[in-house]
């Protein structure tokens, strides 16, 4: 069952003025229940604009988007959608505002109208999920934490709401490799344990290749490619996005460009090495 269905979605900034800029152009694809979808694209390709359609912050200029089966053109539905779709913005640590980490996490839960006890358990659970010690942090101010810790608190504040769909906009931007890996592991674990649908946006495909079941490549507001990660990588017409890809896949792309009969749908370095070995042996 499709949990999000996007049909011919088009969206422009400043419509009908001289500043009009088409951010999304005739986008169509579906997101299945329980899958891990990666959206990849360069800066300005419309990734952030697209995902704000998922929880009703934006709505299409033309075309439709159905979230959990209902059209987001319905304003009442749109306004309630935050309870079903969690959205972690880019640099979410810039949105922290409460006096303590506990209140920060509890903010969304209180807006959901949960009772005190439930809020208490969920806050603890979410903090543990992102690898923070609830006892130690509950009463400290979020502004006193390091950048990486603030990021984790911000992500936890969405995880605590336990929505059916979790959307994250470049959650690893600006973090060191260790911090990035930690956030990504947290998300994957959370998805598997809670059976939620996850949409992860990134300009760096490396982190999506192993995590995502399927990939959408956005290019200048259009869908450049869409399908299972392996299929997307195996496509022929991806070469003009190749700066997005990791080195070992770029090598395969290059060889293919030079006429080698090689399968570029390789997820890991080992797979790529095996494929190279196979082709070399066969005299490809």
């Amino acid at each position, binding site marked *: 069952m499709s949990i999000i269905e996007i049909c011919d979605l088009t969206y422009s900034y400043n419509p009908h003025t001289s500043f009009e800029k088409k951010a999304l152009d005739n986008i169509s694809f579906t997101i299945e229940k329980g899958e891990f979808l990666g959206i990849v694209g360069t800066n300005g390709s419309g990734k952030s604009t697209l995902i704000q359609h998922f929880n009703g912050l934006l709505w299409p200029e033309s075309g439709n988007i159905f979230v959990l089966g209902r059209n987001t053109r319905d304003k009442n539905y749109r306004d309630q959608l935050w309870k079903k779709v969690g959205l972690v913005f880019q640099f*979410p640590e810039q*949105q922290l505002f409460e006096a303590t980490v506990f209140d920060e996490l509890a903010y969304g839960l209180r807006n959901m109208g949960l009772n005190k006890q439930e809020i208490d358990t969920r806050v603890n659970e979410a903090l543990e999920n992102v690898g923070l010690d609830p006892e130690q942090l509950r009463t400290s101010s979020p502004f006193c934490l390091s950048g990486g810790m603030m990021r984790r608190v911000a992500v936890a504040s969405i995880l605590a709401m336990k929505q059916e769909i979790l959307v994250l906009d470049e959650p690893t931007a600006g973090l060191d490799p260790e911090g990035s890996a930690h956030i990504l592991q947290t998300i994957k674990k959370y998805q598997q344990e809670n059976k939620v649908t996850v949409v992860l946006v990134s300009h760096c495909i490396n982190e999506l290749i192993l995590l995502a079941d399927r990939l959408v490549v956005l290019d200048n507001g259009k869908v450049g490619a869409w399908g299972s990660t392996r299929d997307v990588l195996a496509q022929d017409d991806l070469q003009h996005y190749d700066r997005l890809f990791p080195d070992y896949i770029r090598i395969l792309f290059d060889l293919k460009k030079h006429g080698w009969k090689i399968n570029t749908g390789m997820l890991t370095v080992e797979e790529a090495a095996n494929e190279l070995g196979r082709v070399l042996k066969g005299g490809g």
Partner: protein
Amino acid sequence: MRKLKLGGYIPGTSLIHQLDPRTKLLGGLAVIIAILVNDSWPVLLLNTLLIFAVIYLAKINMKSVLQGVKWLLILSILTLVFQCLFTKGDPLFNLGPVVVSKQGIYRGGTFFLRLLILYLSSSALTMTTSPMKMAGGLEALFAPLRYLGVPVNQFAMLLSISLRFVPTLIEEAETITRAQKSRGAPFTSPKKIVRLKTSLSVLIPLIVGSLQRATDLATAMESRCYTGGPNYSRVKNLHFGRKDQLALGIIVVICILPLVYFPGRI
């Protein structure tokens, strides 16, 4: 941002865009002074024509300018109604028990024209002058105050920095608002106190972010040897050319001279 800010700078290469910011500032000032000290019909009409000519020459989309006039019109109709009701004078005609006087109509009309000119002249100025040029122009015009011990350069820097960061702050406020909406922030709650509390969820991160940015900016400026003195250089110096002389001449003829010929009430 779905809506465009009224009066925001629209880049262009028109004649009006090319004028020196000082010319435009002085011109705008002349128009405003003219219509505020004098309310006779010829003066108001001349200035209205002048402003429309400027907007035409600036190649600004008339529609986008007139969007703002819509609100002005509502305000003006209200004032016109009140002026008609309460200004005593030669009766023109009766509307039931209300006597509409000549003076009432006249006052309402002039009030509308004055507002229109004020609005249009300031829009024409800000729409054709980039914030940086505007700050440069203001600095040059206020430069003589330096001899009175006023730190004109610092004020100009202050002004250009604030102008520079207005759009950034608006954008940031919008993003934070959306982020808090995603956590269910009740921005449209019927209770005023709830809405007030909710606005804090945007204000606090905004202030924290601004302070952080101010620190970064200060470091960046100091590392490029900014000391606040009057001797820093610009990439583009202001240039007062023949077009500017001509423009100022026209303004003197249209704005200042009629004041002498058509003395109106202040």
